[in-house]
């Protein structure tokens, strides 16, 4: 049985090679590298990234799509990876926190988070940074209130919001 995708976009999408509830071979492209894994269809993208691709930078804060700690980019768009199944993303380009820096060189957003102390415990930080990088690419106005609103899907319980905003504004300024 082929897993139905059930959306308009599915019409163009290639048929998935996944059948039945048992584990299947699935290949995900994460940060430009192919990760082949044998997983059940019910495995979320988050758990596939963490437990099967071994990329533990992406965090599980709620597993319910309420906190943003698991934010990754799928084809450049930021999403909660806990709310989607891994098998649905075999044709997608997935970017996690491990793929944000350019080798040893930090992304300007990462460097700014360090400079402005945009974190304390650091657990929400990978999600904040991936979300911020995607947000900057979305082309919003770079003012305090817009950044606050656009970053409100990522909860920081340590209360670093003001420093997160400062970091993003600094990183987003044209060089």
């Amino acid at each position, binding site marked *: 049985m082929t897993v139905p995708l059930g959306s308009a976009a599915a019409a163009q999408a290639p048929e998935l090679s996944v059948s039945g509830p048992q584990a299947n071979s699935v290949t995900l492209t994460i940060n430009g590298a192919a990760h082949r894994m044998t997983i*059940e269809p*019910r*495995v979320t993208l988050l*758990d596939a990234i*963490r*437990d099967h691709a*071994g*990329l*533990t*930078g*992406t*965090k*599980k*804060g*709620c*597993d*319910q799509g*309420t*906190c943003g*700690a698991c934010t990754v980019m799928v084809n450049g768009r930021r999403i909660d990876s806990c709310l989607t199944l891994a098998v649905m993303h075999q044709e997608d380009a997935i970017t*996690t*926190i*491990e793929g*944000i*820096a350019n080798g040893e060189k*930090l992304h300007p957003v*990462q*460097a700014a*988070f*360090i*400079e402005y*102390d945009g*974190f*304390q*415990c*650091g*657990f*929400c*930080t*990978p999600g904040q*940074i991936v979300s911020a990088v995607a947000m900057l690419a979305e082309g919003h106005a770079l003012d*305090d*209130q817009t*950044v*606050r*609103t656009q*970053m*409100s*899907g990522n*909860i*920081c*319980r*340590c*209360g*670093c*919001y*003001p*420093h*997160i*905003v400062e970091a993003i504004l600094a990183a987003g300024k044209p060089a």
Partner: protein
Amino acid sequence: MPIVGAARSRVDGRDKVTGGAKYTCDRELPGMLHAVVVPSTIAYGRVLSIDDRDARVATGVVLVMTHANAPRVNENKSSPQDAKLFLLQNDAVEFDRQPVALVVARTFEQAVHGADLVRVVYETRAPQMDLDAGEVATPAQTAGNQPAAHRRPAAQPALASAHAQVDAIYRTPTEHHNPMETHGTIAAWDGDRLTLYDSTQWAFGVRTRLAHVLSIDPSAIRVIAPFVGGAFGSKGTAWSHVPLAAMAARATGKPVKLLVTRPQMFGWVGHRPQTEQHFAAGASADGTLVAMIHEVRNETSLSDEFVEPCAVFSRDLYAVPHYTMHQELRRLAISKPTYQRAPGESTGGFAVESAMDELAYELGIDPLALRLRNYSEVNPDNGKEYTSKKLRECYTQAADRFGWSKRTAPPRSMQRNGMLVGWGMATASRGTHRGDSDARITMYPDGSVVLAVGTIEQGTGSPTVYPQLAAAVLGISPDRVRFEWGDTNLPTAPLAAGSQTAASIGSATVLAAEQLRDRLVLLGGNVPPEGITIEVNAKVDEAEEGRYAQQAFGAHFAAVEVDPDLLHIRVTRFVGAYDVGRVLNAKTAGSQLVGAVVWGISMALYEQTRFDRRTGRIMNATLADYLVPTNADIPNPEVIAVEDDDQRVNPAGVRGMGEVAMCGSAAAVANAVYHATGIRVRELPITVEALL
């Protein structure tokens, strides 16, 4: 620029911004199994039967542990401070989401599915959820061995004859810590030796409790606490899932990872108890306080006593000759409450600082002037001189920055763009604590230094700030000092809570570095090939500690805007100045102060755990329903650390800064809401409904 106090960026920053920092459940051990707790779906009663037939045969499930087959362990408390644990030893249910079974499987998904297949039948009894009707438990002492009832002399007669009085009930709700990283444990046995990776504020405390539960020697247990993704008090103790993971690992012969889910974070891992505070104060016409009464009761569980020490705030702040306090507990069918960021002084500060605002209006005196009128140069309760006190400077600096003098006193008198504007202020106060800490410091021939203490890193900056302290003593760059932490194999550290960590670890660090420096001088500056190692045991000298009163202070100023039609409340400005002793790192200190202000705003406007009073079940156990502030909810708080070289408090010179900015800050917001609307809200959080 001096090394201590410098705004040094976090040395673990690169790890934290690249995803490289390893938290407990980021670890993968060979052959590791996954465990999921089955929580109770009733609050009070007992388990009649558990049907685990489907779960046991489900794909991948290795073990279903219930009270019928769990190994017998020692659930009893090893000390009165211990929480009662729920380790599947009997059929009793005492609160919503108590563990009643554990499912262990080869994958996380299989364990989750297995847990769904466990069918539990209960005998349900009516839970006691009413604070008025709960059984009274009278504690002998509150946190820190302080008296639960106390007077100097009785307040009642003086209060009755005072020129002006306020007398009201203030309420604060049950709150759950909800750090972003949920609790998690990985347990692995090697013969009779147990290794635990645990998200904890106190690896040594976990080891002690687990040794007691499992009846093994503490030396057979190693607890590793890598980066901790927030805690705020909830990870101060070994809750039930930690021994459950160890029991499951022993039963299966495999390492077991147990991750507590977000809805389970409202179960057995502690919470701030709801409080009901009767607070009364009387003053003469010029505002001089003559009497105060602070009577507190808070919820506790059926099997534990936890005091939320609200009255400490009123006892230790203003110069009041007549004072009476009392703390009482009421037993409800809830899980054990525990300390949550600024226990007692945050909740107590709300009542006291709201009442001070009410008294200021009653007397027609400016709220700041009223505080200054009752300023106490010594601790008002025991008459002791402070190690240092810069509260007056806090008031002045924060009020100037805020522009307090431009405030017009009458409620609803300040408006902007059709919004009701309110300005409110409050005092911050928080006792300074310190625990015994060991430390080891080694200098190698190349001049590099390793400083080791088995404390934890939960965001306060341990790996960054302690090397600064050591480097300053040694006269070297902090980049030459590496900090090792998070392991019971390292020198013993106290519980990382109560704003005591910098005082404790910092003092041990300074003493160790001073001894290393002295040794180095004796050796003529030559480091032998094996290096120089110094180990210290920085014990708190009780007699010395008692010589002076030790306290951190501050002043909060908040501005709110309230929509007159929709009654939506926004905090638009917040300025706070804090008297915390020496600042070890301007950058990390600023973040802690801002974070505590955010928690104060959150307490004022958002947080509340809601119970169904008939069933005792929690109704909002997700981060969608339990409100915490998002980025858009928070203004840009301006925080000022008032410089102070406190030579008396402890070798590190610090008085604690993780909590003080949360003490009284909720009252500053509530007072601003009153100023904006003319409505005095004495129950948190302040919702739209409260302003209708």
